[in-house]
């Protein structure tokens, strides 16, 4: 899909150089026109957060349809995505955050575990760029490590959750009957169990290790997504290509993996990005309360908890992790909304699974 190439500069011309001979001339014309007209056109403005916007496709997007016909699907998605300026901004911010988490540590000599006893609770300076905390740890090094930790947890929980939810949700829908009823009963049951309490209970005992936290967050986080996927797959189950595959003697597991789940693609990708936001929020909450990542390890949530008692006397302790967190969640939401509009402009399911 196009999501891996979102930061690329969008292709200036609509026609690819290797396009068939008769087409390049007409394809360049209509595609170039809306491009210049865009700033004046209010409908082209991105409204990324609108959860259920029926008029997602700007009117002029339909005009150059003949030109798009031989545009690759990936290029089409990329074009639609990059039309949404907020989504591109989100992708750029997210890429910068990932770079910061990956390579930010190389810029400083301090490790997040080093304690500088000559500088306790010092404001930002040339030596310690983000200042130091009560134990003399360099806040910049902590922030890099904490962002790394939070990102790793968020992305892996989100991926695992989506995989689990896709298999369970579409499996329940495909098999139907007793399997479906039993799965839905389990999902509804897990939804009324106060999941945050169970999370805190389990991670209080087992946590400290971020890998355990990933497992715990996944096990108690797949239900609502699975329910959305189930409700969408119930209609996919009746499609002709599923019937055709059944008549060809394809096994149920193969039908689910090859025919149902790929057709949920856009829903899954959008839920993946929004799942990252949800995981970051709950990981932060757990770590803030002391139930998630625990010292000596550092995540953005534990840094917030450190800074909570010194909000006015040492605001840098709280400001830097808070800023990184907000950048992370906002950029991910913008990307998710941009992807939803790009992959599936007419879909109402995205909003059903997205925000509320």
């Amino acid at each position: 899909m196009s999501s891996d190439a979102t930061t690329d500069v969008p292709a200036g011309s609509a026609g690819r150089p290797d396009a068939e001979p008769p087409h390049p001339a007409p394809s360049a014309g209509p595609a170039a026109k809306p491009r210049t007209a865009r700033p004046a056109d209010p409908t082209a403005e991105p409204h990324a957060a609108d959860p259920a916007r029926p008029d997602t496709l700007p009117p002029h997007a339909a005009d150059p349809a003949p030109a798009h016909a031989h545009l690759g699907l990936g290029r089409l998605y990329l074009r639609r995505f990059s039309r949404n300026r907020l989504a591109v901004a989100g992708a750029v911010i997210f890429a910068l955050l990932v770079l910061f988490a990956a390579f930010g540590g190389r810029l400083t000599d301090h490790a997040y575990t080093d304690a500088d006893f000559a500088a306790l609770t010092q404001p930002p300076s040339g030596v310690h760029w983000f200042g130091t905390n009560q134990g003399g740890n360099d806040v910049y090094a902590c922030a890099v490590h904490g962002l790394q930790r939070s990102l790793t947890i968020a992305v892996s929980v989100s991926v695992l959750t989506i995989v689990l939810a896709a298999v369970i949700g579409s499996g329940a829908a495909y098999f139907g009957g007793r399997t479906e009823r039993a799965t839905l009963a389990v999902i509804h049951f897990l939804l009324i169990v106060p999941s945050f309490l169970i999370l805190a209970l389990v991670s209080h005992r087992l946590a400290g290790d971020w890998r355990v936290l990933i497992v715990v967050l996944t096990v108690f986080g797949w239900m609502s997504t699975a329910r959305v996927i189930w409700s969408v797959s119930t209609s996919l189950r009746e499609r002709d290509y599923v019937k055709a595959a059944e008549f060809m003697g394809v096994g149920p597991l193969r039908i689910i993996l090859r025919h149902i789940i790929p057709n949920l693609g856009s829903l899954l990708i959008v839920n993946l990005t929004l799942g990252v936001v949800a995981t970051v929020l709950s990981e932060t909450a757990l770590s803030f309360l002391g139930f998630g990542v625990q010292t000596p390890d550092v995540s953005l949530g534990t840094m917030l908890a450190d800074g909570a008692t010194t909000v006015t006397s040492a605001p840098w302790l709280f400001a830097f992790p808070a800023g990184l967190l907000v950048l992370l969640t906002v950029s991910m939401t913008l990307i998710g909304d941009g992807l939803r509009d790009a992959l599936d402009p007419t879909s109402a399911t995205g909003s059903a699974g997205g925000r509320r």
Partner: protein
Amino acid sequence: MVRHVIRKAAGWLLMIAVATNATYFLASWLLDPRSNYRELRPVRSEEQIDRALAPYNLDPREPLVHRWWDWFTSVTLHFDWGKSPTGVSVNGEVGYRALVSAELVILATVLSVVIGVALGVYTAARQYGWADRISQAVSVVVFNIPASVAALVVVFVAIWLNQHAGMHFLYVAGENSPDVEGLLPTIGDRLLHLIPPTASLTLMGYVGYHLTQRSLLLDTLGADFVRTAQATGLTRAQAIRRHALRTALIPTAASVAFSVPAVFTGAVITETVFGWNGMGRYFVQTIGKNDVHGAVATAAFAAALTAVGAILADIATVFLDPRVRVS
């Protein structure tokens, strides 16, 4: 209608009973009440600790099934949810703290709904106007701010305001001051303690209502019946208020009904940051202090209120939406 509600309530009751008992076993397995006594000096032997825990039905030498049966019978027969490892009654704690949470969350919920819906209606009627764009951008950012960050920002602003006003008038810790006497000073003192956490909760709460109400109203604004209403001579504002908003409010009303009971379970992060001894903080403390009975009671309380909220939402939908019939 009544029969429908009773049938639903019975189903929920069964789910709550199963969930609560499952939580009891999970909590007994994961929480170790003995650790509360290990910190005491002089050091107690394991034998002494177990004996100290025995009157509270937490003795680990007793098989778990026996402990569960004692707990289960005391809950079903006397509605006694047991004691904490230090002998404090869970019933008394929950009763007091639920009211503290309610004091905090009711005002915040009302403010969130009023501000969110008003903003949603105002911006939907002026879609793509500057007010719509600005509020939309603000709401998207606020929607993604973690609760802890929002609460700490409010703390920062409150302290800053105190310093600049030159007096200490906003309190960011606790629900009341200990040495205030008399009716009016008590009310004033409570209100001043209430403002910062309410601001934080309202900030977190209005966003959802704004975004959903806006998109719900946008869906109905283009509907035929709104156009017909305008064609009969109503102004656009009248058509929106009397016809479009009426249908668009139904899902919002259901979600408000769903969230009303949640005021008693409180707000975990906000209560922790502002030092309010409500249910949210109780939940954190029970787990931190290995209080099995307290944690289970909190879980049961939360599950019960979720069920009440779901039933209230059903009732609200039936009353507000003439298209829905209970069969």
